[in-house]
């Protein structure tokens, strides 16, 4: 299992410059840390010595050899944030989480790390949780930040972020609505289609929120596979002839209620989608 995974990774990256770093980055993205087993496997399969692989893995701060928590909290201790009170925030975070910077809480919820300047000095002191920036943080806000992160910052954002709005779509051929109010994603009815890839066939629900990439499906769809989309009502394939500008996979068109067409890239993991509301094009 592990060896297969690694050999696939190697196939993709080997021969390129800096391949090792890309490989480690992918492993890190997948497991949120670098498991010992995988590092050993990378060394064996790529013909590098384990010492070299380990050296690279420990050199870069972006890599972690310990499992990380669900949420990553980075508190900035760069010069600007330092004079604006960063250390007090770090202390408060350490106190409330009961861990030191660089550690993970025993329940694997939070990992705390300190960083040296995030390039947002004017906003200091800066705390970043799972990619969400908190600026001008005061120690009294720490508790709130932690609670918010526990609930999940993405949900909070979907409610308040104006760039995200729900759309309603139907099949281009039979005009039957594709919305499924029984199966909600991100708190809104999802778009239900039938998909097939390889030998597999089944339903998939896509978030109807423009800007959200959440999907659920009957079968786990591996990244990078191109899937065929079908209307669950008339069983026609949803295909338009356009192909993705980023990865060249066919685009999947759906008609938007109220006029317009939305096109999604049919490659899993490719985030390209186009909204055409008759004239104005969002990408």
């Amino acid at each position, binding site marked *: 299992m592990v060896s297969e995974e690694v050999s696939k990774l190697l196939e993709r990256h080997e021969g390129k410059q800096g391949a090792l770093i890309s490989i480690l980055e992918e492993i890190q993205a997948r497991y949120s840390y670098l498991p*010992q087993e995988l590092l050993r496997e990378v060394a064996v399969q790529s013909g590098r*010595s*384990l*010492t070299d*692989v*380990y*050296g690279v893995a420990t*050199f870069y701060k972006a890599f972690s050899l310990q499992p990380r928590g669900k949420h990553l909290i980075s508190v900035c201790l760069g010069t600007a944030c330092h004079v604006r009170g960063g250390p007090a925030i770090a202390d408060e975070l350490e106190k409330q989480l009961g861990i030191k910077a660089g550690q993970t809480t025993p329940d694997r919820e939070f990992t705390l790390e300190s960083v040296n300047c995030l390039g947002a000095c004017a906003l200091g002191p800066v705390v970043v949780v799972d990619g969400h920036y908190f600026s001008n943080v005061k120690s009294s806000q720490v508790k709130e930040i932690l609670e918010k992160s526990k609930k999940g910052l993405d949900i909070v954002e979907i409610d308040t972020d104006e760039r995200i709005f729900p759309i309603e779509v139907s099949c281009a051929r039979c005009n039957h609505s594709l919305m499924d109010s029984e199966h909600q994603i991100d708190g809104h009815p999802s778009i239900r289609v039938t998909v097939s890839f390889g030998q597999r066939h089944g339903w998939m629900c896509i978030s109807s929120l423009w800007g959200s990439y959440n999907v659920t499906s009957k079968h786990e769809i591996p990244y990078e596979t191109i899937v065929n989309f079908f209307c669950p009502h008339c069983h026609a394939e949803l295909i338009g002839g356009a192909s993705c500008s980023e990865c060249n996979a066919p685009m999947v068109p759906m008609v938007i209620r109220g006029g317009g067409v939305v096109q999604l890239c049919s490659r899993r993991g490719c985030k390209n989608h186009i909204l055409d509301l008759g004239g104005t094009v969002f990408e």
Partner: protein
Amino acid sequence: MVTLTINGLQVSVEEGTTLLEAAKFLNFPIPTLCHMEGLSPYGACRLCVVEIGEGPRSRLVTSCTYPAEEGLVVRTTSKRVDRARRMVIELLLGTCPQSKIIQDIASKYNVRQQRFRQEYDDCILCGLCVRMCAEQMMAKAIGFRGRGETRSIGTPFDVKSDVCRLCGGCIYVCPACQLRCTYNQPEKAVCGGCANIAAPCLKKPEFEDMMCYMDPCVACEIKKD
């Protein structure tokens, strides 16, 4: 062939020769620590500094890594070199005051005081052992890990390496000498090379399983609380 001047003497050397080798050819002594014949030059200890160029454009370089250039003017013992070298020695002494090799160099260059806090570290990160392991023993069992303050040398994951053949080469070349010595924790040992020498730690019961190359090392005496 390139011709250069070292301390006023002209010398022609083959292209690719380092300043250190050229100076040695002329018998000008340059102290070295991280340099060893048979291992690739690394330039870690900075002990071998020399001054090149003239006037305000002169600068200090490490002679063990700097290749000879046509017309280069080199001084191996200028005032500036001397000052820099003594500072390097002082710093090395601060890191590893217990190392006999460093002490010897200090006494040779008449460094009698040492203004930095003594760390009693067991490694100066000169990389000799790493290169020995990779280039002469073809094992690559040990390497550098981490960076900055937390940079260290050791095996991956701090467990005994599968590719280590216990040759002891790393301990043999170590100028801090007790680098690989794990005192009374034989399970962590990288080396197990020889038990033939009467190192002081070997005579104590708690070090019974240990082996040590470094006869006059005495590091274990200092380190062990």
